[in-house]
């Protein structure tokens, strides 16, 4: 089964988006 490789650093995600041309899907979550 494929796993989602989550980025957790905001700026790193934007850098990946610039490089790939893909948009960012950001999930704000709470562990509670």
């Amino acid at each position, binding site marked *: 089964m494929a796993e989602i*490789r989550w*980025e*957790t650093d905001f700026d790193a995600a934007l850098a990946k988006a610039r490089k790939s041309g893909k948009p960012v*899907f950001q999930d704000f979550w*709470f562990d509670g």
Partner: protein
Amino acid sequence: MNTGPYSDEKVQKFLEEQFIPLRSQCFWDKPTGPMQRFGITWTPTFLILDADGKEHHRFVGYVPADDLFANLGLGKAKAFFDSGRMAEAMAQFQTVIDRHPNAGAAPEAVFLLGVAGYKHTQDPKELRRAYETLKAKYPQSEWARRADPYSAIPL
């Protein structure tokens, strides 16, 4: 970490192929930079951003896979729309409508397809067609009411 809709292999594949997936943990007693930047007050909150960090779509609360797919597609379409790439936006809105006609995001996709079509062609009939589709398929939706002024446009 991949629970709920994320446990669906199709969702995993779609997110990996079409997006940069980013997870941001929230702490209510000490809000993080991203929480403050986007005014996050409840979880889960989902955003579609471009490479400059500009928000194009937001939805709040857990959604089943079909609604998640529809919102992801709608977010992509709105990113094209907001940057003036109307032909690509139209194709993406149409994909949402065709693949997820029963999703909550579908009526918004119909409305914005009409607007993108009008912006792309300067033909106001695109707005009237959106109205007709909304009245026929989603008559109870807010988007049908928003399209009501377009009923006066002659076909």
